[in-house]
């Protein structure tokens, strides 16, 4: 019986070429997109699961909230980890701190090779007991036991040593210390919330800090990981945290600090804190992409349902006769489901081919290294087969029940006509398809507009033509004035300053005590350590008071600039009232000399908050804090200007690697997730429109084929292309109008909610709704016109004779 059904299925596939191709191709596109997004989602969900203790490892994070100002920090002070271990030995298996001097780059030398390394960290000696890495050389148990020991990755080993065994070799770190290679690990999987090239021992830091690790409970530069003992729950330790904070944190801060644990495997998708080691992914974007991929598959299955029921007229004899000779309904249901499964599996094979071809491009877009090997794993292979089965069943279930319910007597007597119910169902399905397509067109256009807005919004400073040069612990900082003057001698360089973070991307918080606040109540405000000409370099508007003045000797020691949000936060009434107000800082007493217009010191996901600009007088503090030189250039000949900057840099810091970036590029990196999401959704939306169009093409083709006789009669009595086009357009156009009417309000509500996630966002543009309507209507009309003209081109008399 099954062989017979298989034969009929195959012959039907060949006989109805248009619907078979539409079905198979549509399903293949749907499945290919689904598989690609599945690979992406599986990858996103697999972060940090390679560590065997992943389920019991947590990161300690802290929220400092000073009446609405403060930070949510991914890192903690140095003493927190050992103190936790001492206090709760029954709950904690081990703690590990990771530290990098908050330096974006570390200078590494090996003979004549000098590099600014971005991924150099220091970790406690038990780092490799908590986290699992595959060692090529060395012993994970002891690799970080000694001071100045360093473990490197295979890639780093190749970069510095080629095929030589690097064990025991020595790197020069920051020109002062020697780091000895005690281990080499295989490259770190990309599915890690942070990756590193060098992991040195924490005891090295101790030596660098002259025998003692920092004991302050304010400075929080250590990413602190806690492995709980077996059977200890996250909540158990978290319950102890308030008491812990009360016991150990300073009186000034303890009331405002809250600690909690973050599951290691949740960090990548759910953590968006201050001081993350690397930017993380975004769970909601993963959800959005999965939803769009499912929509695409649904649209493809709807094509299948529509075409199967629309073309059922050609199978009435088969169905009727089988029933007459005794086939029962369930046998026919199984047959039609079998056919749907065959098409679905053929589509799956085609989809896998499409994925194989498309993966390299997708990987570039997604910045991942995904491959199809995932499906060699028995679990995922079964999932892949299940996807094929579910798609086949989804596509085939309605047609199977519809076709098998034909009354044999009626169909064999030629009384078959598509029932009103099935015609109605097809129309409902077309409306669903187009509602989704229209909604996605509107969403994609809005997402692109929002992204464009984020990139081009007025941030309160001029981001164009500003070059950042990396100078962490660089001698240039010690001779900064000479360096700056040398640069300014070039007319293509307009202003030069230095800062501790890339402005607009990241910043730290610093402790202050405003006038009138009790002695023990320090507050932490977002702040940047800057230098003279900061305001000039970034075109920031001073709205009250003045900028720093080099000629004013007291400015460096005790002058600060605050923003308007800070004035509002402090309740000082007007900007002018703020002038002369005093703040205590760790450096002494500071005085507000100017108020500047609010700017966005981080991404536009969050609103501008109180902010402080501070300059440092002490040379040691300047050397520690100032990590970048910011140079505003004229923009006449960037290449020439950059060559000049590099030449000057090399004069002042010979042998140091020159590294620069444009501020606008750095700012755009903050929206990398949004950029990726927009590109993905654009691609998927184009595919969805294509698949929905393909389905409509199939339906219109069959409608015209069924009405061939009518077309011929109308033509022979004098109807023209226009008359026929209007006749057919009326059948479908109202469905598209209805789809628009449904899609518009739904999209409006969803997009309104999405935009509210951004502190700064565009207003929904009605134009995008109109564009979506036009695209859907024009596509429908084009398809109908095309098929009408094709039908009319055939000789009407010939068609009549066939009838």
């Amino acid at each position, binding site marked *: *019986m099954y062989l*017979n059904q298989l*034969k*009929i299925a195959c*012959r*039907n596939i060949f*006989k109805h070429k248009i619907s078979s191709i539409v079905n198979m191709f549509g399903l293949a596109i749907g499945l290919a997109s689904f598989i690609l997004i599945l690979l992406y989602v599986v990858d996103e969900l697999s972060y940090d699961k390679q560590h065997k203790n992943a389920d019991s490892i947590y990161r300690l994070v802290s929220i400092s909230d000073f009446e609405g100002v403060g930070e949510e920090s991914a890192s903690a002070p140095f003493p927190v980890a050992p103190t936790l271990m001492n206090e709760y030995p029954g709950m904690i298996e081990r703690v590990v701190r990771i530290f990098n001097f908050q330096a974006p780059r570390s200078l590494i030398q090996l003979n004549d090779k000098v590099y600014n390394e971005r991924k150099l960290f220091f970790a406690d000696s038990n780092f490799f007991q908590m986290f699992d890495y595959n060692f090529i050389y060395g012993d994970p148990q002891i690799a970080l036991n000694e001071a100045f020991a360093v473990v490197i990755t295979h890639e780093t080993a190749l970069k510095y040593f080629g095929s030589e065994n690097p064990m025991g070799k020595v790197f020069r770190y920051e020109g002062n210390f020697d780091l000895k290679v005690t281990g080499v690990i295989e490259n770190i999987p990309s599915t890690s919330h942070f990756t590193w090239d060098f992991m040195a021992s924490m005891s090295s830091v101790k030596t660098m800090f002259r025998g003692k690790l920092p004991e302050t409970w304010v400075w929080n530069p250590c990413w602190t990981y806690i492995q709980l003992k077996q059977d200890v729950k996250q909540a158990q330790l978290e319950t102890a945290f308030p008491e812990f904070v009360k016991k150990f944190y300073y009186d000034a801060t303890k009331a405002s600090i809250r600690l909690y644990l973050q599951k290691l495997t949740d960090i990548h998708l759910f953590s968006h804190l201050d001081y993350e080691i690397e930017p993380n992914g975004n769970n909601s974007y993963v959800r959005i992409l999965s939803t769009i991929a499912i929509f695409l598959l649904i649209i493809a299955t709807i094509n299948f349902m529509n075409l199967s029921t629309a073309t059922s007229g050609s199978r009435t*004899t*088969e169905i*009727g*006769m*089988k*029933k*007459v*000779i*005794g*086939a*029962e*309904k369930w*046998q026919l249901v199984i047959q039609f489901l079998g056919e749907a499964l065959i098409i679905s599996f053929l589509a799956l094979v085609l989809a896998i081919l499409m994925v194989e071809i498309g993966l390299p491009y997708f990987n570039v877009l997604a910045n991942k290294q995904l491959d199809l090997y995932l499906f060699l794993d028995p679990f995922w292979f079964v999932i892949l087969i299940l996807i094929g089965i579910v798609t086949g069943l989804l596509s085939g279930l309605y047609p199977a029940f519809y076709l098998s319910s034909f009354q*044999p*007597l009626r169909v*064999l*007597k*030629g009384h078959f006509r598509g029932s009103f119910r099935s015609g109605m169902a097809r129309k409902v399905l077309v409306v669903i398809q187009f509602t989704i397509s229209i909604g996605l067109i509107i969403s994609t256009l809005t997402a692109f507009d929002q992204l464009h807005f984020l990139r081009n919004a007025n941030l309160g400073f001029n981001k164009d033509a500003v070059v950042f040069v990396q100078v962490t612990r660089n001698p240039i900082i010690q001779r900064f004035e000479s360096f700056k003057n040398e640069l300014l001698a070039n007319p293509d360089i307009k202003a030069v300053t230095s800062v501790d973070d890339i402005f607009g991307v990241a910043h730290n918080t610093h402790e202050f005590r405003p006038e009138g606040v009790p002695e023990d109540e320090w507050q932490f405000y977002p702040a940047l350590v800057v230098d003279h000409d900061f305001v000039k370099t970034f075109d920031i508007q001073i709205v009250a008071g003045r900028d720093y003045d080099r000629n004013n000797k007291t400015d460096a020691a005790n002058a600060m600039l605050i923003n308007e949000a800070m004035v509002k936060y402090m309740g000082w009434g007007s900007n002018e009232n703020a002038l002369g107000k005093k703040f205590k800082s760790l450096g002494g007493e500071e005085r507000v000399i100017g108020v500047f217009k609010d700017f966005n010191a981080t991404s536009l996901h969050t609103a501008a908050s109180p902010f402080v600009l501070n300059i440092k007088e002490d040379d040691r503090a300047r050397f520690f804090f100032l990590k970048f030189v910011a140079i505003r250039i004229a923009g006449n000949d960037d290449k020439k200007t950059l060559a000049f900057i590099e030449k000057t840099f090399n004069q002042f810091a010979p042998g140091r690697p020159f590294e620069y970036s444009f501020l606008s590029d750095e700012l755009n990196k903050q929206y990398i997730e949004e950029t990726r999401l927009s590109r993905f959704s654009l691609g998927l939306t184009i595919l969805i429109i294509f698949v929905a169009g393909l389905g409509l093409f199939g339906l219109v083709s069959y409608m015209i084929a069924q009405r061939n006789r009518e077309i011929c009669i109308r033509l022979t009595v004098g109807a023209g292309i226009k008359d026929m086009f209007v006749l057919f357009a009326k059948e479908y156009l109202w469905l598209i109008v209805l789809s628009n009417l449904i899609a518009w309000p739904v999209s409006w509500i969803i997009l309104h909610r999405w935009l509210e996630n951004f502190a700064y966002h565009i207003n929904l543009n009605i134009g995008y709704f109109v564009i979506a309507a036009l695209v859907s209507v024009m596509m429908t009309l084009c398809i109908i016109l095309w098929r009408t003209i094709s039908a009319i081109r055939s000789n009407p008399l010939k068609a009549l004779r066939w009838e």
Partner: protein
Amino acid sequence: MIKAEKLTKIFRTDEVETTALNAVSFEIKEGEFVAIMGPSGCGKSTLLNILGLLDNPTSGTYTFLDHEVSKSNERQRANLRKHNIGFVFQNFNLIDELTVFENVELPLIYLNMANRERRERVNEVLEQMQIAHRAKHFPLQLSGGQQQRVAVARAVIAMPSLILADEPTGNLDSAHGEEVMNLLNELNISGTTIIMVTHSQRDAEYSRRVIRLFDGQIINENIKKSII
């Protein structure tokens, strides 16, 4: 074999009620060859559909092989059909996507007959119907007469005790029509009961009994003495 008592079939639409059969009663014994005749719209096909268990009567009783089937459901009727009844239609109703062999084989598949046995049986019947040389062809590659022979082969393949034929020669020229009637006659001689709806007096001559219908009622039952 068949006992119909006061069989009535009424078709209702929103506005019109049409009585296709009006209290028809008759009996047909095993081995009979009965022709049902009458003008268009007299209820011949409706009667055949009820006798073939493709439709239920509105009222009356219908006993087929000692089963009262007038109220049975589709599943029960399908089961009785596949074991006991073969159908021959005016327009053949062959499945275009299947070859001659596969079309004929179909009823045996639904009877769950083993593959080998099935093949033997199909080949035997195709030989008997003199259509074996066309086994691998598709219906559209055959002449009308050949198609109807395939349809007859399909009707007899499961060795039903009853064959219902609805205008079996209606779409055939006289030579092919005669061929098909001879086939039916041979089947009857070998013991199969045949009920045939026809307009053709010539075809009706092959039967042993003629039931004449007019406006849904039997107006005449004519038992013939001679066998053609």
